[in-house]
């Protein structure tokens, strides 16, 4: 299998690093018994990037394949060609890059181009056998869904996947970056965009649309009340429980 890795960016210091989801992807691959794992990266090779990429080697790899591409180019054709040339059973990628557009589209475009199925947001790969992978997909609120996907396939990794192991300094320095070349496709559209650091967006508190001053005030000072709920008095415990059970069933929270 192949893990696609990218150069990440520390959210506070802004320094290059292993991308968190990609590193989790590498970790996920490492948990599969008997898997033959290749690391693949398309991008520019410079000092900062090299240190970050060597971080993946420090997770216990001898080599990483690097398809050299200039900055702000579209990595899709290069990666697709590389995967087509030597198709693995399973391609693992992070959900989105920590730098640049970070749209999270790349795995989808690869899957489309290769004609492979894609499953997003994995927490774990439980089993790979008989050309089928059984995986656990992370859902919001800590929930999980079990899926089977036919191989070859592309999967992306959620932040709920196991945390990556520390990168060991020695292996990271000893590992090889096997540089290859591929045709370059410039990202023309992106050149027209404007980038600026994001400002925090606080979550909406309450929407007070009322036009009159009295209503605005009431909306601000009002207690959180629902109103109009069903109240069951003088019922037996069993009848009460049945009503609660019905609601829990309807809402689908009982598994």
């Amino acid at each position, binding site marked *: 299998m192949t893990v696609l890795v990218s150069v990440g*960016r520390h959210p506070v210091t802004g320094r290059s690093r292993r991308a968190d989801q990609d590193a989790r992807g590498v970790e996920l691959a490492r948990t599969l018994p008997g898997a033959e794992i290749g690391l693949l990266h398309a991008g520019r090779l410079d000092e900062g990037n090299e240190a970050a990429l060597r971080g993946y080697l420090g997770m216990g790899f001898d080599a990483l394949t690097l398809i050299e591409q200039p900055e702000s180019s579209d990595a899709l054709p290069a990666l697709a060609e590389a995967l087509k040339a030597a198709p693995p059973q399973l391609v693992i990628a992070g959900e989105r890059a*920590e730098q640049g557009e970070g*749209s999270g589209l790349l795995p*989808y475009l690869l899957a489309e181009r290769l004609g492979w199925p894609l499953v997003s947001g994995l927490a774990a790969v439980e089993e790979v056998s008989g050309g089928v992978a059984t995986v656990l997909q992370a*859902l919001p609120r800590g929930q999980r869904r079990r*899926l089977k996907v036919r191989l070859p396939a592309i999967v992306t990794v959620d932040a709920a996947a196991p945390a990556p192991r520390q990168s060991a300094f020695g292996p990271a320095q000893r590992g090889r970056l096997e540089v290859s070349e591929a045709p370059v496709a410039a990202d023309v559209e992106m050149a027209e965009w404007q980038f600026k650091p994001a400002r925090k967006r606080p979550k909406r508190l309450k929407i007070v649309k009322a036009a009159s001053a009295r209503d605005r005030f009431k909306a601000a000072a009002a207690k959180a*009340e629902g109103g109009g709920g069903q109240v069951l008095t003088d*019922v037996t415990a069993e009848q009460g429980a049945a009503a609660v059970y019905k609601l829990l069933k309807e809402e689908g929270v*009982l*598994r």
Partner: protein
Amino acid sequence: MSEILRRDPRKEWIARNRLHPQHLEVLAELGGGAASEWVGPNGLVRRNPHVVGFMGPNGLKRIDRSGVQQGAGGGGAAKAATQSKPLVEIESPAFLVAVVPDMAGGRLTGHDRDLLGLARQLADADPAAPGAVLAVIFGEHKEDGFAEAGIDRLLHLDGPDVEGFAPEARLGALVAAEEAWTPRHWLIPDSKLGGADLGRRLAARLGERPATGVWQIEASAEADLGWSCTARGAAGTLDIQRSLPRFALALAECAEPVSDTRHAASELTLPQALPAQLSRIEDLGQVAVDPAGVALSEAEFILSAGNGVRDWDGFHHAAEVLGATEGASRVAVDDGFMARNRQVGATGTWVTARVYVAVGISGAIQHLQGIQSCDKVVAINMDPGCDMIKRADLAVIGDSAKVLEALVALVEQAREEKRNAA
């Protein structure tokens, strides 16, 4: 309705008899304007200040001390303030704005509503050539507020193929919708509930580059579609300003939800039946997770204990059987029955559960504040007058220990039946 006057001579007698214990009650019931003042048996004036005045012609309470005007004759009861929102119908739209809501739990999510608000901005920008908002939804649902959420047209695709995690079948349907109507815009929530995945699949399939992480749009004369957008990039650390493409995956709170109008929400059907697809992904269903491992702030289903809980073993057992994450009121924590990190409320953790079951919690104001974004609140309490009951969608008045015990029995019985059936 019959116009024949009905009379109750006994009540009329009571109404005349000021000494009758039911006198006031009957006066009020007969609606003839209960007396506010009369002379009592000891010669002192008796007043009933609760019935002073009557409903005036403008629907406001009126007091006329001259005595000329009286409330008798029923007065003009306050007009029922059924202010329904105006219905906006767009018969022949100039274009369509397609939205694919997540419909988590079978209802429009807050995120979905924000997107529909955004869709309305796009659709309503030019009053001379209004667009219509088309929502595409999959599977069974419990939503009855599509019209109020700003949806003009609704495409509801049902059936076993699109239930659960079925990205390939859903993608096929969206491609069919694109071919049938070619909406000017596609808006999809950039959310983990499914939109982020489905939206990227659709764009990749149709070969169009979407904008992702969109949180703001502005009219822009230079852009092809007349709009520019601001989108989060680089894992949330950058804002990207670009023109709005046809496909946009938008974040929560990208716009204010629709609140002032109603829309037709008329059903559409695809011109052709969807071809059967061979799926390469099989959904084996959701897996039971350890609810204790789910952060309280994120938990979907919370069983929360308060002052009224006496049987703590029973409570913990119920949480385990129901698969609910445990929460607590401040009092339950103060009293040492639950850990501080289980405390729900403005002074503890704000929760966002879809179902919040409050057991023996009266509902202090800071607690109610902390559960305000829960979808369904169930209260089990002895005191029918407590604030939690007022907040609850369903309240059971009674001994919480017994109700929980019965609930556990029901759940276990249902599981047993399912096992036997399997």
